[in-house]
């Protein structure tokens, strides 16, 4: 197949970019949830 590499790279890019973005959202959500728990704990102590 001629130019199969470019086709394959494009297909992989679509998946990779969406996957990396979704992972970044999940990571940021995890950090925020942790921050909320810490802040609520401080609020409870105060």
């Amino acid at each position, binding site marked *: 197949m001629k130019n199969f590499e470019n086709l394959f790279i494009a*297909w992989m890019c679509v998946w990779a970019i*969406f996957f990396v973005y979704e992972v970044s959202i999940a990571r940021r959500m995890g950090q925020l949830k942790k921050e909320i728990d810490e802040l609520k704990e401080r609020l409870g102590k105060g």
Partner: protein
Amino acid sequence: MRLRIPVTALIAAMMMFAGYAALFIAPDEKTMHEIQRIFYFHVPSWSACFSAFFIAFVANAAYLATRRQQWDALGVSAAEVGVVACTLGLVTGPLWAKPVWGVWWTWDARLTTTFILWLLYISYLLLRGLIDEPGKRATLSAVFGIFAFLDVPLVYMSNRLWRTQHPAPVFFGGEGSGIDPTMGKVLGFCIVAVLCLMVLVLVDRYRLERLRWEVDEVRQELESRSLDFERRETHSVPAEGRQ
């Protein structure tokens, strides 16, 4: 939340089938052959990008009209998802262009306006990071978001208004435009699959923004409590000093 797993599985299956249809069901194009199949990832990326920027535009206008925080959250979420889809279009385009045009990139009207669009929305996201005060940040970014959206119709119309290296429009391009019916069906399915994926990601991004508010609210409560405590402390000192 109960629907989350089946919906994600359905969209993943749709994306898998879209990939299969693009590679094996769609007929071979006469002049470009296999490389033309990038079309089935490239065009849906732009559909998702323009849809996300349109949602951001509506949310920005709604925020300025109502000043409700939900619209600001939707605006920034849609803008960020739009930037991701725009990046996909900007990556898949040169991969298609190199074997067909002989160059990765050319500064024609379509490509230049598209690159400006990407820069505008990157600036929108950076602008938000520079302003600490939430109300001011939401207002300024809403105004900037509306301004950035003005480039979307320009991108869409660029290969109609000017002669470009980028091909003439395939849809709504007047006489001589249009594609093979099977290609059209495969493309339609790919667009629907990518739009569904975009909505799923947008929902997640919106939930992230809601968590940010929660953090801000708890922080504000903590700050107001510590201020109250400091005030009480300063009032009690002179009283003790008098004794």
